[in-house]
């Protein structure tokens, strides 16, 4: 009896993550997928067929259409939006990595006693609203903003730079907002790393820089990958930062999705855009998981 109970209990423990995935990922995904196969209509909800219950399921399934997907592939605008989102996200990710890695490295090599403080400083911005922080950048980057005033004052420039409403502003915004997501996983891998590995490499004839490339960097790859994904994936679908900091010329899929959903009230098309976006993001996740599995294989 006891055995049976504990067997059931251990089964239940396994069920929890699956149930979580089912309720918060799979079911919503299927609902969105179903809407993406519908046709937009002036009704409540604004598409047809609406799901009328199990009984009429088959009947409404017959009305499903892939028109929305066809439309997306036919109009180059969507491809351009996806592509430009991926490029913007990729560039931002690289920039975040270039800034985040030295930061994480410095933190991991800092004296044990001040590491919690440094960690705290990295997390601190989360204590204010994301929106407010992005808004603050408007004040910094605008032509009469703090940055331009400072640069004018130092004499580096003689005319205000137009940074706000450009790609540069989007990069700044994304790098700033997602930096902690890059720093934290890299920091945690570097912090776990045995420093004697570096000493061993030096002992075997590596100058410090070579030791960094041959030992530190390869061992930090799981953290770097995790950080890059944590930045890249939300950055692809980012809406707020390009909306507030970017110029109108910036074509990003998040904004396209928003306008399909809100401006056009075209929920089915917006759902199709979202499904494709999701598939687009699943690829790097799968690659990452493969890399993780391989790292596990090679692991500590």
């Amino acid at each position, binding site marked *: 009896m006891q055995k049976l109970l504990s067997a059931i209990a251990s089964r239940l423990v396994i069920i929890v993550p699956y149930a979580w995935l089912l309720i*918060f990922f799979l*079911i*919503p995904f299927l*609902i*969105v997928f179903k*809407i993406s196969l519908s046709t*937009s*209509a*002036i*009704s*409540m*909800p*604004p598409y047809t067929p*609406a*799901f009328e219950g199990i009984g009429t399921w088959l009947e409404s399934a017959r009305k499903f259409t892939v028109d929305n997907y066809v439309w997306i592939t036919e*109009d180059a*605008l969507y491809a*351009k939006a996806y592509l430009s989102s991926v490029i913007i996200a990729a560039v931002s990710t690289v920039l975040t990595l270039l800034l985040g890695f030295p930061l994480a490295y410095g933190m991991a090599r800092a004296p044990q006693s001040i590491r919690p403080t440094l960690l705290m400083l990295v997390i601190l911005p989360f204590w204010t609203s994301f929106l407010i922080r992005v808004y603050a950048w408007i004040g910094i980057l*605008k*032509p*009469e903003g703090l940055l331009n005033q400072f640069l004018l004052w130092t004499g580096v420039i003689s005319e205000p730079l137009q940074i706000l*409403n450009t790609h540069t502003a989007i990069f700044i915004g994304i790098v700033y907002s997602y930096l902690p997501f890059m720093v934290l996983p890299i920091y945690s891998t570097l912090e776990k790393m045995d420093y004697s590995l570096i000493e061993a490499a030096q002992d075997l004839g590596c100058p410090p820089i070579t030791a960094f490339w041959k030992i530190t960097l390869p061992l930090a790859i799981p953290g770097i990958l995790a950080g890059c994904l944590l930045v890249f994936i939300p950055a692809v679908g980012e809406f707020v930062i390009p*909306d*507030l900091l970017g*110029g*109108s*010329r*910036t*074509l990003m899929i998040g904004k*396209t*999705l928003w*306008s*399909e*959903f*809100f*401006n*056009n*009230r*075209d*929920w089915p098309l917006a759902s199709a855009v*979202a499904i494709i976006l999701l598939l687009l993001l699943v690829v790097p996740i799968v690659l990452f998981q493969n890399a993780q599995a391989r790292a596990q294989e090679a692991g500590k």
Partner: protein
Amino acid sequence: MTRSTLFMTAVSVLAFGLAAGQASAQERVVNVYNWSDYIDESILADFTKETGIKVVYDVFDSNEILETKLLAGGTGYDVVVPTGTFLARQIQAGVFQKLDKSKLPNISNMWDKIEARTDKYDPGNQYSINYMWGTTGIGYNKAKVKEALGTDQIDSWDVVFKPENIAKLADCGVYMLDAPAEMIPAALNWLGKNPDSKTAEDIEAAQAALEAIRPSIRKFHSSEYINALANGDICLAVGWSGDVFQARDRAAEAKQGVEIAYSIPKEGAQMWFDQMAIPADAPHVAEAHEFLNYIMKPEVIAKASNYVFYANGNKASQKLLDQAVIGDPAVYPDEATTDKLFTTTPPDNKEQRLMTRAWTRVVTGQ
């Protein structure tokens, strides 16, 4: 309505929420969902004093958000305030219930001229009453425009739609509404075409006109221009009258020497109407009617207009308005100007896509 609950989970990108509070059975409540900064709050207190009905007041700041909630259903709101073009589609979608005019004796106070125009969105004004109305025109920074153009009086769309004119303002900053339903009719009107036309040919023409001035537009956005104008960051914005007035007031309060003006160009401008309506699934229909009837009292709506500086659709209230409101041609345009104001009908799905696509091309330069 369980379907919509599931639906909300699906589209979790959006912040849905059941804002309206639950009240006990005995207490009479009305849940009102209105635009932010759009009422003198003492009106709500007075209503409760007079009727004993508690007002749960919640605000939104975009028609799109309101519409998404309404189309998903189950909002719990009793009174909502969509703009006419949105209202029209929402009525078609079955979002609202017909008003019981027998419970709205004050409807006799309404202004027939406005009713004649809102009839286009709400045939027979069966579903809604007008709360406020305004125009889509040009807001500008007087000093900066004078510096660039040599005059601080703008009276024509030429300033916006002639590329050589707008180019002179490009450096000091031009914003435009990110709304095809506003900008395409404005372009068509300037081109001398029917602003309500939705033919592919006309939309293409509007697109071309807008693309010609695209290089001079710093940003397309439907709310940021309020701050940008008020702070003196830009010198011109095509925007909604009420928003420009808000920018004007903020600039005046800040005392930084920024003076904002609003112009209804002589070629005419689009009129917009914010309509009060009752959702089909409103939980407190009787209270909602009482609220609408109260709003239509001349002294109440006059108080609201005096507070927010918008024109209202209540004829009887006009003698009670402050001179600063009724006497301002930007708020209550004269007869000649009013005749030039136009309205548009909502596009169907195909037309909507056509317009959005044209608009995206203009905005992104793709």
